[in-house]
């Protein structure tokens, strides 16, 4: 846990004084990722650098697990806090193994313990130790370098990680992937993480909470859903963007809104006139045709009224099926792409488990704005 208590940082003095951080009160709870977000010069990086005493606090206190950081020797404090910055922070004169093992070496670990740890960390970030251990940073791609950066920050197994735009230097496609890996890692490791970013997408994706800064002040500190749906003022609303309803959808999964017991279900061997009668009676415009445990497709009342036979032959196939973990943002995009108001959800064994309709999504967005 990191606690900021009325922390102020002023650079320079007299007429040239600049207040980089103004009376910050914030608590980063144990085991959570808090994204410090904002435009450049808003104080987010300063907050991070005050935490490991790379900058000196002008006023106020910072506590790490209830211990005032001013009571700890800065060198020891920094060894205790994992530090990850953009890829360029790898030392080009050191091998990957030597880069990863820096903090354990500074802390005086045994040699064989360090070697073991290096291999463990490389495996953790999905790089083969046999291949990468003895390479130099220049021989790695940007994404690989950044993974090493993360591995280096975690090497001494710190409880707390300070990350300064760690994925900022990576191209968007690789960034997405490395963010996913990072989240998988965090689900396992449960570190307390202060994560500086200027990218709202990244913040929504990785943050358990978001602390939004502007001109040295903390403007809003909330979970991403609240930041998106209840921006405190115009600055927050502008920063999260006009498409924040879509961003909310990015946070929600199919499992949050799906209808697990849809009623407009037709058996594949049902005769068309019975099916039509069923749909008319219940007031459905179309039915989902289920063949065994798999959806075979859908039929509309119009199709049924012109054709004879069993419904299986008339079913229009679905272009794709959803999983429960698919994000609603993707679902909406499919609906627009294929001009379909409904998609079926399958579990990992390809069994039909329910449906998502455009109305379900609309309802979910409406509800998230209502609270």
């Amino acid at each position, binding site marked *: 846990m990191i606690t900021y208590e009325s922390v102020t940082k002023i650079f320079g003095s007299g007429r040239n004084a600049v207040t980089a951080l103004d009376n910050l009160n914030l608590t980063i709870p144990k085991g959570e990722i808090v994204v410090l977000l904002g435009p450049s010069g808003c104080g987010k990086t300063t907050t991070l650098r005050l935490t*490991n005493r*790379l900058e000196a606090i002008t006023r106020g206190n910072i506590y790490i697990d209830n211990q005032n950081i001013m009571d700890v020797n*800065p*060198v*020891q*404090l*920094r*060894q*205790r806090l994992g*530090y990850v*910055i*953009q890829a*360029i*922070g*790898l*030392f*080009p*004169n*050191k*091998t990957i193994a030597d880069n990863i093992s*820096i*903090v354990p070496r*500074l802390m005086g670990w045994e040699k064989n313990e360090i070697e073991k740890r290096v291999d463990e960390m490389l495996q953790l970030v999905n790089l083969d130790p046999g291949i990468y251990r003895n390479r*130099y*940073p*220049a*021989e790695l791609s940007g994404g690989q370098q950044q993974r090493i950066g993360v591995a*280096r920050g975690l090497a001494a197994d710190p409880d707390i990680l*300070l990350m300064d735009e760690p994925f900022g230097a990576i191209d968007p496609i690789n960034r997405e992937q490395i963010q996913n890996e990072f989240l998988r890692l965090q689900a396992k490791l449960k570190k307390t993480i202060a994560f500086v970013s200027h990218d709202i997408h990244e913040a929504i994706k990785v943050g358990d909470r978001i602390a939004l800064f502007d001109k040295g002040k903390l403007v809003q500190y909330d979970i991403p859903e609240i930041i998106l749906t209840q921006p405190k003022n115009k600055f927050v609303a502008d920063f999260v963007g006009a498409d924040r309803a879509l961003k909310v959808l990015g946070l929600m999964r199919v499992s949050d809104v799906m209808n697990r017991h849809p009623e407009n279900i037709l058996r594949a061997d049902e005769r068309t006139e019975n099916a039509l009668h069923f749909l008319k009676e219940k007031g459905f415009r179309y039915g989902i045709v289920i063949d065994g445990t798999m959806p075979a497709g859908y039929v509309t009342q119009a199709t049924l009224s012109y054709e004879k036979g069993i419904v299986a032959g008339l079913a229009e196939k679905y272009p794709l099926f959803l999983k429960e973990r698919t994000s609603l943002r993707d679902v909406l995009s499919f609906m627009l792409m294929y001009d379909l108001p409904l998609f079926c959800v399958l579990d990992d064994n390809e069994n039909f488990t329910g449906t998502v309709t455009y109305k379900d999504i609309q309802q979910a967005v409406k509800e998230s704005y209502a609270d």
Partner: protein
Amino acid sequence: MISGVFHFISENFSQALYLSWEHMWIVGVALLISAAAGIPLGLYVAGHEEIASPIINGANIIMTIPSIALFGIMLPLLSPINLGLGKIPAIIALILYSQLPIIRNTFTAIKNLPPDLVDAADGMGMTRWQRLKEVEMPLAAPVIIAGLRTAAVMNIGIAAIAVYIGSGGLGVYIQQGIDRFYPEMILSGALLVSVLALIVDGIMAWLERAATPEGIKIQRKLMQ
């Protein structure tokens, strides 16, 4: 004329060898002392930029003093302690001349390191000394050695003039050759000084390469 020079050198081979050795000894001792003084000074200046320009300008001014004049100034200054003539004042002069390339290169090498690396080193909890030893020195070493190389080659030339204050070395051939109107002797001295300079330059160039960290060599190769 040329054959005369070779004839002269082969006639006086052992003396030529001795004078070359004496020459190198003066330059070598001066280089070791000036490295021991200049590199730490350069490192200190890199950490205290407010004193950088006075120190570097000071070293620059020393460079502009003609060597003959510097020897002339040191004569009355060092005479009271009986060191006005001989190898000691020569070495002192060479040390003074070496300071500019050594301090300047050390300062520039450290200052030009990417600030992110320094930040990473500090942020991970390295002490100043560890940062210097593990990050700054390995990366700055080639540039610092380039400064030593400049100083060494320059000093081989200046040391030839130090013969006028009795330092010995290959300047002896040049001085005596002038006094005796003996062109072959003058040229022999000059030739040997040049050969020494080329050899030392080659050795220092090799050292510069050897001091470049493997990771940096790979980086350069991949960037081409």
